[in-house]
């Protein structure tokens, strides 16, 4: 029998059927009837096999775990079930009831792992794949799958870059990077590579997640697989069982005081201003002459933006698997208010999964998952002037939030002679009054029909569709602004952005399993077509007569530049095949190949081929290891494969004409058009070839299991808009260039230090070391500059780049003797390293004094998950960390602006004031104005770069399961869960050391510019209480 590729459920089902067959041949002796219930973790185990040792007598448990069997005293019952440790119980004369508790098996080698286009018994897997069961993630009170996976996967770095509800998860498998294509993995939900947002999927719908890391595992996904693939399988009914599960949690979120960026209070700020004018020899403005008047009167603008916010989730799961129908229905409501004023995220989700066996040979199935997400986040994140939080952070603490009547103030501006060059609206009003709402309705549907004409052969056709309708509405009334220096009333602006996405995929797959003696084969072949279409209509209107009516027709002006309608399409056609072979499940071999034709590639380079091969050797099945008392399992794996990244934009290969370059003659506007990009008919995918070697080791009956992988991969043909001299009239040429090398080590260990019937402790820990180096860029180009970064041949990607701070010019001699900036350096100003040795400090061009000043990538990342069960209690602790990564504290350009135009970090109190009073050496003199202070502020330098290593206690959950329950309730559990409980970090620039600015089109964020801290939405600490009831 060879069922290697059946799913876990199918294995159980087949086992069940076989046993039914066995029962008919049981014989009877001098026996009595014994009965009992088989349970595990308080839940009945249906379908468990109960055998009388050494006989043909056996039975399986029913839906409620009950069994009844004839057995004589002195005989032994053997109770077994896939995934559990087999137990033996002696039959004693006179005792007729034997309730047996099965323990989860410490060894999961017999488990089935979801792989690309199928599943495989874990023992026989030759690729690098890590699976997580949905159950393990159930208690974490967060909205998205990626948040739940933090710390659990070796080789997968997951950072929460902003606390905006439902957003900002950055998932990177094996450090993969692209210059301009995306770096997010491909998400495949029930076989369908989705085009929408993975974060909008209710995590409670998930049965199992498989993360495919090496090329042998991913290459069947061809031109989209280079960033790794995450396979998500949604819930199905358990064999023979109907189950109703209600999971509810509610709680609150808060931004801890500890870890917030320390800013000056009102008195400190006034003191700073006073000193500023004194040091400059200027008269101190009246309002700052007596700083003590502000004592205890601080207006903490940032703190006022934050609030304690509720979070609630309801999930009802009904599954049924009876006779020919297997159904799962999951209904969820998730409601999260944000910790920043007037932000919230709601999700209503429903999923109906049904499989139906029409006959022994034909199965059909339909999954439908409609989903509604409402997200309201006024412009919290962003740079100075655009992000409300950043603006609040650096607003003068002497400016009142509330007026004497306790109402929010409207507008704050101090007299011009106080250095208050920017006017500040009330940011609380900004948060309250500006609408920024996105409503998303999406439906994900999978259907299939499968025909098994003969044993081992399956022909399967699937049709999948995804629609996503997103309606964005933003309205900035005339009474509010998210920007500094905008007078109120301002011009009211509305934006409506409606995006309709539709994608369908048809796949046709044939698989054939065959065993000849000890030779086991599987052949898979298929072809598929997928298309995507996006229709977008964006209308921007401004100058409203009445803020209460933000309709388009209510606007006096339609902003043509901001009004767009457009269509984006792509299509992908593929053929793929795989051959799997093993001999005695000991020598393992897999080869696969996919060919992708993509509309995104240039006309002369339309098809890409992505082959892979892998081998495995189960050493522990060899004679020399077979009876080793310590080593219970050993497998060596090796794989090589090629994958692609087609995230290169839809029409990148075309020369596009911009026909809105209008011009005017006299008073007549005339249309204008020009070619704005260059054509490249050879444009293609990014290619990643990856070699992986791994070791799986089980010790002491697999009580300790260990996985190690080493990988090395080269990404070539990077899609890059190669900058070309603009004497050509163009800024860049889209081309496939360069090479990046990645390599790394991953270690994962699973251990069960204690495993008794009352107390069980299991530990899962992982650590990953990921490295990269740029081998080549385009010919003639050895570096690409970002605003604060450089990507340079021979160095790791995206390094922080700027001037190296040596200190401050201590005194006149130091200034005279050191290289300086002509016209700008003074005593006490920032002293920079003369890297090129030309005697002056220069900034800009290839031969200036800039150098690499920091690395946004960690030396290693790690995670550890501890699970404990003690009688009815359970507990888990999840933690993860990152070591050696640095952040660019970008917000210092405002929060440490030494001209005193903004509120400042508290550390700026201890700045250079005179040679006798040089301060802590972090911040320089304020004297000389922008000409002097501007160097420190505007020239990227090492003063901005700080260690952002962290260790975060992600989650602690404590639960209690009630065993004595009314008949109608199978089990009930209450639990308390705390998320993001503590962050240990030397980073002082803000509460979230995982922050990384998303690309804002201004040089902050983006692939070449990682690790920018612009004081975005903080990640809250969440405490919730939940109930989980099974009926």
């Amino acid at each position: 029998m060879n069922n290697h590729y059946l799913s876990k459920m199918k294995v159980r089902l087949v086992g069940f059927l076989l046993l039914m067959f066995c029962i008919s041949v049981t014989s009877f002796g001098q026996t009595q009837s014994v009965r009992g219930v088989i349970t595990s973790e308080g839940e009945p185990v249906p379908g468990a096999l109960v055998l009388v040792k050494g006989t043909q007598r056996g039975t399986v448990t029913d839906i409620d775990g009950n069994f009844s069997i004839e057995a004589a005293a002195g005989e032994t019952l053997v109770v077994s079930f896939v995934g559990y440790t087999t137990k033996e119980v002696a039959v004693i004369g006179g005792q007729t009831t034997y309730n047996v508790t099965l323990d989860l098996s410490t060894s999961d080698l017999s488990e089935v792992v979801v792989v690309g286009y199928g599943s495989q018994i874990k023992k026989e897997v030759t690729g690098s794949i890590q699976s997580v069961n949905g159950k393990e993630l159930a208690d974490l009170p967060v909205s998205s799958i990626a948040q739940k996976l933090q710390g659990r996967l070796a080789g997968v770095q997951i950072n929460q870059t902003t606390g905006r509800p439902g957003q900002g998860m950055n998932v990177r498998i094996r450090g993969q990077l692209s210059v301009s294509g995306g770096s997010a993995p491909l998400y495949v939900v029930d076989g369908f590579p989705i085009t929408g947002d993975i974060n909008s999927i209710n995590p409670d719908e998930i049965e199992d997640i498989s993360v495919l890391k090496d090329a042998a595992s991913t290459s069947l996904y061809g031109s989209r697989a280079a960033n790794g693939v995450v396979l998500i399988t949604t819930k199905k009914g358990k064999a023979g069982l109907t189950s109703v599960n209600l999971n509810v949690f509610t709680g609150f979120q808060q931004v801890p005081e500890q870890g917030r960026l320390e800013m000056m209070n009102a008195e400190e700020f006034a003191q700073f201003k006073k000193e500023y004018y004194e040091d400059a020899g200027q008269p101190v403005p009246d309002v700052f002459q007596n700083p003590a008047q502000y004592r205890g009167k601080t207006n903490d603008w940032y703190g006022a933006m934050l609030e304690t916010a509720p979070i609630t989730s309801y999930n009802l799961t009904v599954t049924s698997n009876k006779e020919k129908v297997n159904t799962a229905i999951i209904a969820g409501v998730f409601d999260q208010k944000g910790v920043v004023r007037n932000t919230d995220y709601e999700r209503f989700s429903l999923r109906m999964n049904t499989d139906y066996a029409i006959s022994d040979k034909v199965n059909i199935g339909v999954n439908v998952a409609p989903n509604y997400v409402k997200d309201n986040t006024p412009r919290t994140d962003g740079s100075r002037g655009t992000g409300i939080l950043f603006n609040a952070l650096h607003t003068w603490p002497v400016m009142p939030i509330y007026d004497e009547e306790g109402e929010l103030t409207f507008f704050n501006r101090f007299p011009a002679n106080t250095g208050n060059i920017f006017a500040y609206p009330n940011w609380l009003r900004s948060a309250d009054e500006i609408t920024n709402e996105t409503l998303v309705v999406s439906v994900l549907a999978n259907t299939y029909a499968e025909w098994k004409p003969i044993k081992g052969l399956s022909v399967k056709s699937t049709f999948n569709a995804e629609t996503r309708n997103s309606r964005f509405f933003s309205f900035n009334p005339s009474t509010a602004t998210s920007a500094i220096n905008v007078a109120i009333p301002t011009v009211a602006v509305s934006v409506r952005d409606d995006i309709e996405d539709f994608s369908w995929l048809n796949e046709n797959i044939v698989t054939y399993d065959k065993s000849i003696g000890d030779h086991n084969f599987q052949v898979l072949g298929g072809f598929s077509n997928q298309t995507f279409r996006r229709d977008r209509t964006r209308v921007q209107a401004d100058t409203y007569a009445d803020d209460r009516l933000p309709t388009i027709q209510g606007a006096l002006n339609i902003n043509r530049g901001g009004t767009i309608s457009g269509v984006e399409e792509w299509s992908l056609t593929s053929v793929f095949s795989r051959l799997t072979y093993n001999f005695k499940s000991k020598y393992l071999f897999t080869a696969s190949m996919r060919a992708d034709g993509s509309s995104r590639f240039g006309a002369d380079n339309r098809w890409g081929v992505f082959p892979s091969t892998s081998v495995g050797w189960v050493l522990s099945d060899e004679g020399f290891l077979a009876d080793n008392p310590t080593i219970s399992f050993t497998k060596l794996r090796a794989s090589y494969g090629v994958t692609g990244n087609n995230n290169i934009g839809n029409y990148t290969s075309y020369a596009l004409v911009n026909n809105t370059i209008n011009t005017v003659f006299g008073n007549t506007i005339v249309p204008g058009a020009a070619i704005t990009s260059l054509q490249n008919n050879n444009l293609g995918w990014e290619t990643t070839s990856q070699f992986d070697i791994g070791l799986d080791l089980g010790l002491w009956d697999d009580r300790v299991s260990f996985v190690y992988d080493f990988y090395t991969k080269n990404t070539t043909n990077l899609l890059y808009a190669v900058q070309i001299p603009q004497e050509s009239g163009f800024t860049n040429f889209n081309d496939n260039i360069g090479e990046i090398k990645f390599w790394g080590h991953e270690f994962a260990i699973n251990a069960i230090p204690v495993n008794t019937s009352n107390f069980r402790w299991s530990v899962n820990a992982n650590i990953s070391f990921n490295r990269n180096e740029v081998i080549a860029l385009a010919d003639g180009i050895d570096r690409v500059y970002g605003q604060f970064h450089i990507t340079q041949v021979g160095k790791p990607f995206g390094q922080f780049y700027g001037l190296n701070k040596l200190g401050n010019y201590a005194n006149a001699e130091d200034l005279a003797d050191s290289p300086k900036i002509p016209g700008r350096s003074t005593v006490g100003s920032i002293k920079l390293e003369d890297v090129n040795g030309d005697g002056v400090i220069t900034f800009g061009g290839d031969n200036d004094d800039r150098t690499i000043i920091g690395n946004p990538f960690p030396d290693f990342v790690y995670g550890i998950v501890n699970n404990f069960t003690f009688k009815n209690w359970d507990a888990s602790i999840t933690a993860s960390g990152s070591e050696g990564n640095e952040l660019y504290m970008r917000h210092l350009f405002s929060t440490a602006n030494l001209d005193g135009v903004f509120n400042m970090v508290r550390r700026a109190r201890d700045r250079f004031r005179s040679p006798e009073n040089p301060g802590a050496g972090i911040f320089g003199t304020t004297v000389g104005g922008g000409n002097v202070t501007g160097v420190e502020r505007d020239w990227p330098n090492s003063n901005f770069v700080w260690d952002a290593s962290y260790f975060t206690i992600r989650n602690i959950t404590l639960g209690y399961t009630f065993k004595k329950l009314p008949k109608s309730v199978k089990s009930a559990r209450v639990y308390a869960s705390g998320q993001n409980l503590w962050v240990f970090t030397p980073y002082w620039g803000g509460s979230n050391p995982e922050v990384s600015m998303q690309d804002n089109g201004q040089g902050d964020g983006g692939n070449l510019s990682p690790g920018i801290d612009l004081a975005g939405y903080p990640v809250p600490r969440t405490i919730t209480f939940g109930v989980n009831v099974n009926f």
Partner: protein
Amino acid sequence: MKKYIIGLLSASLFLTSCEDFLTVVPETQLSSATFFKNQNDFEQAVNAAYSPLRTITNDRSWLLSEMHSDNTYYVRNVLFGAVDNQEDLADFSVPESNGTTANVHVLNQWRQDYLIIARTNQILALIDEVNFDAAVKGNLKGQALFLRAYAYFELARYFGSVPLHLTPVAVRSEAALDLSPEPAVYAQIETDLVAAIPLLLDKAAQQPGRVTSGAARTLLANVYINQKKWAEAEQVLSPVISSGQYTLMASYDMAFSENAANKNNAESVFEVQFIEGAAGLQGNFMYQFMPRPISAAELQPIMGTNNAQPIDGEGNNIPTPDIIAAYEEGDLRKDASIGYVFLAGAFQDPKTLPYIKKFESAHSQHNNHGMNFPIYRYAEVLLFMAEALNEQGKTAQAIPLLNQVRSRAGLAATTASGQADVREAIFKERRVELAFENKRWFDIQRTDRIQEIIVPFGQRVVANPRAYYYPPIAGAVPRNNVFTNLNKFYAYPAAESDLSPYF
């Protein structure tokens, strides 16, 4: 194995039939495959070739050629940093290393000029392959040739030798070209203009605002004068003067486009076209020319807007005491060109500061105005002609032309007589007549008077910073590297040098 072969065969059949499925052309955007096919396409392409002129005149020219002279300076605001790009131009301290500079304005001027060149190259390379009305085609070609010549003339004056792109770039390897020597660049400019003149319509026939044959002649004259080809300049300018299509406006302030009705007036030879409103074709140079910080109340009377807002930062292109002093007694142009505004928030003493008034015109929305910016006016045609004649020794013929300009300004006839005196009179007249029209630096440069004029100017700034709008604050003095880079040409932009193997 047989199965595998069948699979491959069926797969290959499948591949050939799905090219259609994989050909997805942009639905909502034109691409090269569908453009440059008819007259309308070329008309639009020519219109787009004018477009960079707005950016150049609104944002760059005055920095590179007016504030980089003794005519204007900046109003130091010590609270603002990141102003060295502008200050370096005014202070003649543009940093240079290995023949390149990181100055952002130099870079953007370069890029905008080459944008014009690329767009016109595209037109000129393809227009003869498409059949349509010959006269229309000629007029379009003439405009494209003029714009290309104008862009190269700007580059030649700013940089000297530059890459000479005459055909559109199609692949990456063609993007960079070696520098062509300055004379070769001038030769190409002349070729283009000589070809353009007969193709273009004259002012009477051409749509107002577009390039005319008169504009092409004036530009060519300027090109000749820059090379001291005086006779050629005289020859090419004569028809402009004799055409009768140009006159001086009755009063100096009417020479500028002020309001919509006065755009492209009888004095206008070529001006860059703007229009106020939401079409994105507006200018805001008036705002850039304001001393700061200026409050809404201080700004409103100048701009006449109904939503005036304060502006912070450092004010640029502020008339120097030198230009204010350069006007003769009774010169009507002085008050027409320079206004004064009181800034309560200024650190300067006095807080009343001059600003460029000559383009001033009321408009409705803050930071959005529609005045055109002059490139060539008939007054300059007269002064060009006067100069060309005087340099050929025809001083007597030159003087009446000079006086024509002076008389409109309310001034008596010039007292200069000999060739050298008249040369100097014309030079001075150009300074005041064309003040703030971005001519001053080029006049100093082409007459080789950089050392003679800029060095003493620099000494005056350093000796008396308060007069040059430095605030009376300790440390607010000219930086120690001012007036150290008096080169005739700007260094090549570093960002372009990084990408080019040739410089």
